[in-house]
C-alpha cells in the first residue's frame, strides 16, 4: 500500500440513468495541493463527496490515510473526522455563533471539554483572522467571513486532508480574496488539499498538481506548470482558454 493520504480506485456513480463518475482513479500524497478543474456536471463535486462518503459510490474503493472508508464495516464517522470539507454555500450551523460552529464537533464528536474546545476554536478562528467575530452568528457575517469560519471549523478537527468544493463560487468578487488568502496560507503550512475551483490564479500560485475532469473521468492530469502552459488534451486547452478569459484578469491581486 502506498502512503497516499487519499486513494481512489475505479470510482463509479450514477444518478438514475446519468453516469456522473465513470471510473476515476486518483492518489493524493501528503502535502500535495491538488486543483480539480473541468466543466460543470462532470463529477468534480461528486468525486469529492465520495471521498468522505457523503455520497456513496456505486462501485470503487476509497482510502483515507490508509483506512478504507468504503470497506463494509468501516467506521465511517471516525474516518470522516480526518477529512475536512468546505462547501460552496458554507453550510455554517445557523443556530450557533462562529465559535459555536467550530466547537460543536469538538465537544460532540471528539468529546473535548467545553473549555478545551473553546480554546481550540479561538485558536482556529485566529488562524483565519476572525477571532474578533467569534460571538457573531452566521447571519451577521459576510460571505467571505462565513467561509473562513467554515474553514476554521474543518481545521479544528485536525484533518489529514481538506476538501474544498468550489469554496469561492458563491462569493461576491470582492470577498473572494480573503478566502483564497486563508487557503494559500494553509497550503504553505503543508496541508494536503483537494480543491475544486475555477480560480486559476490560486491554482497557478499554490497547486502542485492539477487534474482536468470531463464526462466523469480524469481527462488529463499533471504538474500545475505542465497543465497550465502545455496541456496535451485539446479539451483542456480549450477549457483553460475559456476560463482564463472569464476569470484570468483579476487573478494578480487575489
Amino acid at each position, binding site marked *: 500500500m502506498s502512503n497516499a493520504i487519499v486513494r481512489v480506485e475505479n470510482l463509479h456513480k450514477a444518478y438514475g440513468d446519468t453516469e456522473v463518475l465513470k471510473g476515476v482513479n486518483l492518489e493524493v500524497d501528503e502535502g500535495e495541493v491538488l486543483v480539480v478543474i473541468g466543466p460543470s456536471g462532470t463529477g468534480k463535486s461528486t468525486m469529492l463527496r465520495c471521498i468522505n462518503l457523503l455520497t456513496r459510490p456505486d462501485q470503487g474503493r476509497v482510502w483515507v490515510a490508509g483506512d478504507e472508508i468504503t470497506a463494509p464495516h468501516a467506521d465511517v464517522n471516525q474516518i470522516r473526522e480526518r477529512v475536512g470539507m468546505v462547501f460552496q454555500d458554507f453550510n455554517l450551523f445557523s443556530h450557533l455563533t462562529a465559535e459555536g460552529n467550530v466547537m460543536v464537533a469538538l465537544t460532540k464528536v471528539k468529546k473535548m471539554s467545553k473549555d478545551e474546545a473553546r480554546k481550540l476554536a479561538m485558536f482556529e478562528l485566529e488562524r483565519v483572522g476572525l477571532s474578533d467575530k467569534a460571538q*457573531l452568528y452566521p447571519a*451577521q457575517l459576510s460571505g467571505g467571513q462565513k467561509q473562513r469560519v467554515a474553514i476554521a471549523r474543518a481545521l479544528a478537527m485536525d484533518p489529514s486532508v481538506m476538501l474544498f468544493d468550489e469554496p469561492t463560487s458563491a462569493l461576491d468578487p470582492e470577498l473572494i480574496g480573503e478566502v483564497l488568502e486563508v487557503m494559500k496560507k494553509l497550503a504553505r503550512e503543508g496541508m494536503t488539499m483537494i480543491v475544486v475551483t475555477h480560480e486559476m490564479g490560486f491554482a497557478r500560485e499554490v497547486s502542485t498538481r492539477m487534474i482536468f475532469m470531463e464526462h466523469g473521468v480524469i481527462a488529463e492530469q499533471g504538474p500545475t506548470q505542465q497543465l497550465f502552459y502545455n496541456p496535451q488534451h485539446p479539451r483542456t486547452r480549450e477549457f483553460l482558454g475559456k476560463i482564463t478569459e472569464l476569470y484570468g484578469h483579476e487573478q494578480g491581486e487575489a
Partner: protein
Amino acid sequence: MDKLPDILGSLPYLLEGALLTLAITVLALISGFVIGLPLALLRVYGRKPAATLAAAYSTVLRGLPSLVVLFILFYGMAAVVKLPAFLAGCVALGFCSSAYQMELLRGAIQSVGPGQMMAARALGMSQLQAIIHIILPQALRLAIPSWSNEAAVVLKDSSLVYAVGLAELLRRSQQVAARTYQSFIVYSLCALIYFAMTFLANRGLDHAERALRLPTPLEETAH
C-alpha cells in the same frame, strides 16, 4: 340581573374546571409531541417502510374526529380496559394532536436546509448527533408559530372530554347555566375564560419565539 351574584359565586367552580381543561391540554400536547417528534424524524430520515408507516399513522389519525377517537378509547375499549375518563381524554387528544404535530414538525425539519446535515456528517457526527445538535435546535425554533396554533386547537378541543363526563370548563358552565337559567351570561363567561387561556398561551409562545429568535444580519438590526 338578580342572578349575577349567584353566577359570580360560581366563578371559582368554573375556574376549577378551567384548571382541568388546562391539565388535559398540557398533557395532550406533551404526549402529542413525544409521539409526533419521533414519527416526524422517521418520516424524514427513516427507511422507506418506517417512513411509510409514519405517514399512514398521520393520514389515518388526521382523518378521524377527536370525539370518535375518544369514544373508541373510552367506550369501545371498556370491555378490555376501563380507562379513567381523564386518562382517556388525554390519550385521545394526545393521539390526535400527535398526527398534526408530526406534520408541523416534519415541515420544520424539512425547512432546515440539507446542507446542515451534510456539514454535520462531514465533521464526523452520526446522523443522530446531527439531528440532536444541529437539525432540531433549528427546526424547533421554526416550529414554534405552528405549534402555538396547535396548542390553541388542542385547548379548544379539550372541551370534547365533557362527553365522557369530565367536569371541565364547558361541562361546569353547562351545570351553572342550567341552575341559574342565564345561559347567555354563563356561556359568555365560559367563552371569555377559554379566550383568556388561548390568548395567554399564544402570547407566551410568541414571547418564546422572540426570545429564541436567531440574530438577523447586522444592517437590519441597526436601527
